[in-house]
């Protein structure tokens, strides 16, 4: 059994209430930080822990905090990104629903570290129940004197507000989130300036994912070094993975980073294998934006090493044969799934969610969707596959925010690894409408490539 830091008490009845959470040792980190540590000590601990952002990019949290500008007389803000809308990812929602005080506690400690007296939790608009839960948790914490004016008599003031989003995926991009929080249209900003210098209302701001902030609690309780002992290399600590697709036991799992991907899929402790005795065909390891992998690149990397659930190992092989940890949305595809259809489906999502500011993403996502629809419905040509490749290439890297890349990568990876499935749709237009391509050769072992 792996260690659980965030979900240790998840099965405790009433853990979503302040009293039970407190009984189980909750808010110790607030007491410890506010009473015995300076804000810089907290930042230092987080740096030592090696915690990397859980929102998708995996940027070291401690480093991000130390970049925060601290001009005199200007307020600083901590904004928690609870917009979670990436297809396949549902871990933040789980945390906010079942153990909301873990987030509130993390918010207090993190705000203290950053010197913020007002902090926001921006929650995706569709998650109204979670918004209510968080608001109730805040009220309870306030009533207990752990939030508000002069917390625990230390002279530190903090207010936390929950802001419902409008329900747009793009508002999860940190600068779009800030625009939306300011009451404007959620268009990503052009960077620089970065939020650390000019964020919310032009003030220095840190935006962190729900899980990143909650992870600060065990880091402060046990110390950064303890936290860093879990995991491998620069992938430290535990991580929530939301497993979905054709697995026996879909759900949210807390893993120690470093668990082999194979174990995560097949062990009964986690996904319990592929549902209905089917065979594994493909994996999207970190939410819809990351490159999809065929079965033969999942358990082992191209060099024949076991693939592990770490930032480095998942990315091993780069775009050619690797993928990314992303936001931890682990989507498993069995042999009955059509990769073309899935790629079309993802692209439909990005088309729908593009904010429309920059030309390549605005126009290109819609174009890709139409071409993919054509191929999936047996009306495509081989030239369409090449066209698709070219369109994604014209989007990638040429846009304001990473949504353009996120739309391009899944298409690129699907064509890279599953090109013959695309061609089969083109060459067998009728057959492709009545059955799926199946597993084909995608699980055949591939020859390891020498470095």
């Amino acid at each position: 059994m792996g260690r659980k830091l965030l979900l240790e008490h998840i099965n405790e009845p009433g853990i979503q209430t302040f009293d039970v959470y407190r009984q189980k040792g909750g808010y110790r980190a607030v007491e410890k930080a506010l009473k015995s540590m300076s804000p810089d000590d907290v930042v230092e601990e987080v740096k030592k822990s090696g915690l990397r952002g859980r929102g998708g990019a995996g940027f070291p949290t401690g480093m991000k905090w130390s970049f925060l500008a601290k001009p005199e007389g200007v307020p600083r803000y901590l904004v928690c990104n609870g917009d979670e809308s990436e297809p396949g990812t549902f871990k933040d929602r789980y945390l906010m629903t079942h153990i909301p005080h873990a987030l509130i506690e993390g918010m207090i400690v993190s705000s203290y570290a950053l010197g913020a007296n007002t902090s926001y939790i921006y929650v995706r608009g569709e998650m109204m129940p979670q918004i209510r839960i968080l608001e109730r948790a805040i009220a309870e914490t306030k009533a207990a004197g752990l939030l508000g004016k002069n917390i625990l008599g230390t002279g530190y003031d903090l207010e936390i507000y929950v802001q419902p989003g409008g329900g747009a995926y793009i508002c999860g991009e940190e600068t779009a989130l800030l625009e939306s929080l300011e009451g404007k249209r959620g268009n990503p900003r052009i960077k620089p300036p970065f939020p650390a210098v000019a964020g919310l209302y032009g003030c220095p701001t840190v935006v962190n994912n729900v899980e990143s902030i909650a992870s600060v609690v065990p880091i402060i309780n046990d110390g950064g070094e303890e936290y860093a002992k879990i995991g491998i290399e620069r992938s430290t600590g535990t991580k929530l993975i939301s497993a979905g697709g054709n697995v026996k036991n879909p759900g949210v799992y807390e893993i120690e980073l470093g668990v082999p991907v194979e174990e995560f899929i097949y062990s009964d402790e986690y996904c319990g294998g592929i549902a209905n005795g089917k065979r594994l065909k493909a994996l999207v390891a970190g939410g819809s934006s990351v490159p999809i992998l065929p079965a033969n690149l999942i358990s082992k990397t191209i060099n024949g090493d076991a693939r592990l659930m770490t930032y480095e190992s998942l990315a091993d092989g780069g775009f050619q044969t690797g993928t990314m940890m992303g936001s931890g949305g682990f989507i498993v595809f069995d042999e009955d799934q059509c990769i073309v259809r899935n790629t079309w489906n993802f692209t439909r999502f990005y088309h729908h969610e593009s904010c429309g500011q920059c030309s390549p993403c605005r126009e290109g996502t819609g174009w890709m969707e139409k071409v993919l629809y054509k191929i999936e419905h047996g009306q495509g040509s081989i030239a369409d596959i090449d066209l698709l490749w070219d369109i994604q290439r014209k989007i990638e890297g040429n846009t304001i925010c990473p949504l353009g890349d996120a739309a391009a990568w899944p298409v690129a990876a699907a064509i890279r690894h599953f090109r013959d499935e695309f061609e089969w749709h083109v060459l067998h237009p009728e057959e492709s409408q009545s059955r799926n391509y199946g597993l084909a050769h995608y699980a055949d072992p591939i020859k390891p490539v020498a470095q």
Partner: protein
Amino acid sequence: MAEEVVKFKVTIDGIPVEVEPGTTILNAARQIGGDIVPPAMCYYSKLEGTGGKCRTCLVKVSKGSEKDPRPMPKLVASCRTTVMDGMEVQNITSPDVVEARKGVVEMLLINHPLDCPVCDQAGECKLQDLGYEHGDEGTRYEFERRTFERIDIGDKIQLHMNRCILCYRCVFVANQLTDEREHGVLNRGDHSEISTFIHKALNHDFVGNVIDVCPVGALTDKTFRFKNRVWFTKPVDAHRDCPTCAGKVTLWYKGDEVLRVTGRKDEYGEVEEFICNTCRFETKHTSDWTLEEPTPVDHESVIGANHYLNFNPPSVIHEDKKLQLANEEQLARTERLK
């Protein structure tokens, strides 16, 4: 003693230039001028916050700066990237840039109706120029194009959303020149549309400027609608004593008639000064204006095609009776314009 001004040295396509710190790559290129200036469809120097959206101005930074010579990993929007000392930039000398730009042009055109033959902007449309200069021949797009209904924004301005490239310039005009913003963007992605809230007419002295900043034929002057092709009209700079704006405009003549009035545009299509609606829509007689001289027109522009070069007849004509006779008609026209 004057303080020593620090200047950054930048090289664009091999041509060095010294600029003030804080200058963008695009503006540094404009200081050099000529073919190495990246095309800019959304940036507008007179409107704060514009740029970064259309991606036509992408360039490659092959050397970051003297201090940190590493190249930038991606192409950058030159209109929103400031220069560093010693930076080296490639625009038309980089095949990557040329190709990416081709891609952007293609993207801008896939949903465009290509209705230039019935568009009042034709001839002074930045998208036409862009397509001609940086695009590919033909299109690979075979699907139905997105369409919208035409919208009247008040009685003087018409919005053809089909032609819009979502550069946001008009939104910035509404934000920065008018008191209340009623003009913005609805929806998102390729179904975004410029809109004035529930078709509410934007009623403001300066709102007519949305016509001038629009690089395409999406926002056009209804008083000029279908009156003429721009290349049959003759632009003349003029001014008047206007209580609201600087009153410096370009009058567009067809014969004796002023068909429309616009702000004066520079070589990048940007107006020098925004003008008010009275100057634009209400004062359309030569007698309202003091004429200055024919507007200088880029020699490659179709507007220059049937053009006289100088307002004042060249002095040789003044001095030569025979030439004066031969140019009677032109001189008469010139007189009229005075």
